[in-house]
């Protein structure tokens, strides 16, 4: 372990100074130093998708990102999606469709679905399945999750 140094992270629109050593992942720093526990530590290998966050508005695995290399790049975690108590259309749709069971995968898949909807506000179910193919959900069988993402922007049809 190297000696930790001060790292400036820009998380959910706020500049945060944290101590991190070179080998510490962004996931460890978010959870253990900043107490943002939305990103989950599942496999720690980049496979399960539960740790997904946005860096520069693109979904990446926080478990495969070294914290020091994310300095001063905008990071969004699931905690940064809602504005106060006002949920995004996607978050509301996840609730309305009953797309959460144990909830472990939800934070990560929300980030991937959020990025998908930013590019493609009205995706087909096949497009949603392709986008979420890197997010493992062991409870739901995905049916309600896919439905929730497809219907997120139903109120604003093209």
């Amino acid at each position, binding site marked *: 372990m190297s000696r930790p140094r001060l790292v400036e992270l820009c998380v959910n629109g706020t500049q945060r100074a944290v101590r991190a050593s*070179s080998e510490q*992942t962004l996931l460890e720093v978010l959870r253990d130093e900043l107490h943002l526990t939305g990103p989950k530590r599942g496999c*720690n290998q*980049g496979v399960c998708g539960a740790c997904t966050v946005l860096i520069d508005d693109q979904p990446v*695995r926080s478990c*495969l*990102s*070294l914290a020091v*290399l994310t300095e001063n790049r905008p990071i969004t975690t699931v905690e940064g999606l809602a504005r106060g108590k006002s949920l995004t259309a996607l978050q509301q749709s996840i609730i309305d469709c009953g797309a959460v069971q144990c909830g472990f995968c939800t934070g990560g898949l929300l980030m991937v679905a959020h990025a998908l909807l930013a590019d493609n506000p009205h995706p087909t179910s096949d497009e949603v399945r392709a986008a979420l193919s890197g997010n493992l959900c062991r409870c739901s069988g995905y049916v309600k999750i896919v439905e929730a993402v497809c219907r997120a922007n139903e109120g604003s049809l093209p």
Partner: protein
Amino acid sequence: MDLFLPQTIEEAVGLLAQHEGARCISGGATLVAMMNAGLVEPSALISLRQIPGLAGISREPDGSVRIGAMTRHVDTATSKVFKDGQCVVPRAAVRIANRVVRNMGTMGGSISFADPAADYLAALTAAGAAIEIASPRGKRTLPVSGFVTDWYTTALASDEIVTSISVPAMPAGSIGHYEKLARVSGDFAIVSIAIIARFESDICSFLRVAVGGCGPAPLRLREAEVVLEGSRLNASLIGEAGRMLVAISDPVDDVRASGEYRRKVLPRLLAKALIQIQQTQHAEVA
């Protein structure tokens, strides 16, 4: 563990030479996963992120395509720079893991790890790509066959890095196709087949085939390609070419499949890939 952010290739290879046991980090998709699993413990990390010109895809005057080592899979997968049979490279890129991992991983990082079940090396072998390498002693270029020396082992010396990959121009009208057999979408390949082919009135007039996942390095056998070139393809010729490739294969038993299964699947995947590429060509002509 120290982390360095060199600004030039010269600085990066100088740091590698100075620090025994140091590793370069590009996207982190493989290296950080290995570190998390306790499989590697670098003495220092050298991030290539700040070196200008290491990322990006460009078309050279001779029709070849140069891919910078730091080019992410997502950028290779969606690039419109590749023409004709060169498209085998983006077709392999789009099959790597999933979109989120493709946002992170890079071509240089992937090929330097030389996982035989990963996707690029077979595609680059079929395309006859050249791998450009830098060290404190200067530059050198290797074909994929000279680059992968053993299981997960490359010809890279401890102070060398891959700087770019050059994919030569392919014959006009040729098509690139990548066929991958995996347990689930996004997994590593059990067996993969990279093909570049051209058909002229159903006669196969040009063929390059490379097989991934069936040995330490991709398999390519000119003699097997010659069996099919100049002919109207049929099951017996494809079977013969498949058997020749199986004969030089060296697949392992692992969690994904047995070596026996891989040997059985290889010729069938070759047939599937050849049918697919012919259908693509028909669709493009029609």
